[in-house]
C-alpha cells in the first residue's frame, strides 16, 4: 500500500461533493469535495506500490488540461488500471456538472 499527494491549480471551489466507485478488485473510489479556491489537492491511497510516476502522469494530464473547479479529492485505489481511473474521474466530473462543478 502506498500514499501519494498531488496538487494542481484550479478555479473557484466545486459546488458540491460527489462519491463514485468502489474499493473492489481492479476498481477505485473517488471522493470529491469543494476545495479552497485556486487549488485542487489529491490524496491517493493505492494497493499497488511503485506506480507514483503513472499516477503523476495521468493526473497531470487530466488536471493540467484546462481550468477545473477547486476540489479536495480522496482516491482509494484497489489495483485499477489507468483506463478505469480515467473513467471514474470522468464519472465524478459528470456528477459534479459539465463544467467540473465550478461555482459561478
Amino acid at each position, binding site marked *: 500500500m502506498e500514499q501519494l499527494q498531488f496538487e494542481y491549480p484550479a478555479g473557484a471551489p466545486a459546488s458540491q461533493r460527489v*462519491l463514485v466507485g*468502489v*474499493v473492489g478488485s481492479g*476498481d477505485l473510489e473517488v*471522493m470529491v469535495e469543494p476545495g479552497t479556491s485556486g487549488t485542487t489537492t489529491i490524496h491517493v*491511497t493505492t494497493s499497488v506500490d511503485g506506480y507514483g510516476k503513472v499516477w503523476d502522469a495521468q493526473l497531470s494530464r487530466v488536471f493540467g488540461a484546462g481550468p477545473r473547479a477547486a476540489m479536495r479529492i*480522496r482516491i*482509494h485505489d484497489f489495483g485499477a488500471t489507468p483506463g478505469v481511473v480515467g473513467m471514474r474521474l470522468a464519472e465524478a466530473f459528470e456528477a459534479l456538472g459539465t463544467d467540473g462543478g465550478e461555482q459561478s
Partner: protein
Amino acid sequence: MNHASLLTRESFIELGARARAHALLDPGSFRELAGPFDRLVSPWLERQGVVPQADDGVVVAKGRIGGQPTVVLAIEGAFQGGSLGEVGGAKIAGALELAAQDNRRGVPTRAVILFETGGVRLQEANLGLAAIADIHAAIVDLRRYQPVVGVIAGTVGCFGGMSIAAGLCSYLVVTREARLGLNGPQVIEQEAGVAEYDSRDRPFIWSFTGGEQRIATGLADRYVEDDSDAIRAAVQALLAGGVPAAHRSERYAHYLQCLAEYDPARQPEPETVRAIYAPGAKS
C-alpha cells in the same frame, strides 16, 4: 425469464450497496446516515496495508418503503468480500438499535438488511465479532416491534456470523444466485477435505447452500428473480405482513429434532436435507 423481461428488468445483483438501498426505498426518501463524507473509515485496515473504503463497506439509508419509516442497511460485497469490521458493524448495530428506540417512542421504524458478506473481517478479528454480536442482539430487540427483513441477492452470499444474523431475521428473501451458510465453501473444504466438499464444484455448492435449496428447506421465505422491482415488491409485502407469530429462530426445538433424526454416518445429498427439513418448511 423471457427475452423481453430480461431486457427491461434492472438487475439487483449488479447494483452496488448504495444503489441497492436507493432501489428499495420510496423515490426521494433516501437519506444516508453516517455516510462516506463523515470520515468513519476503519482505523485498522491502513495499518495492515489494506486500502480502506470511505463508508467501510456499509450504507445506512433512512427513508420509507410503502410510505412507512424504514432503515435499509446495505453491505457492499465488492469491498473486502463484504466483511464486517468495527466501523461497518457498529453502523449496522447502531442503526438497528435506533430503530428499536424509535418503536419504543411510537415511531414504527422497520429494518431491511442487504446481506452480501463473508462474515467477520479477519483484520479486525474480535472487534468485528463483537460488532456482529451487537447486530444479533439488536435484530432480536427490534423484531419484537417490527419485522426485520433480510435479503440475500448474491453473488457473495451470506456466511459466518452474519449467516446467524440472517437466521434471526423475521423474513428472508433469496435469489437463485444467493448462498447462505455458516462456513464458506473453502473453509469447509479445508476442514473436511476436498473429497467431502469441493469448493470449486459450483453446482454442488449451490445444491446445498443456494437460494433454491434454502427455500425448499424452509430456511428462507421468498424466492425472487434478480430484478429490482421484484425484490422491492417482495420486501414491501413482507414488511406489510408485520411481525410473524413465531420467528424461525424461536422454533429451534423443531430444528433440533430434525437434526436428531439425521444419521451423520451417511453422506447427505441435497434431497436428504430437503426431506429432513420438509416438515418445518413454512408455507
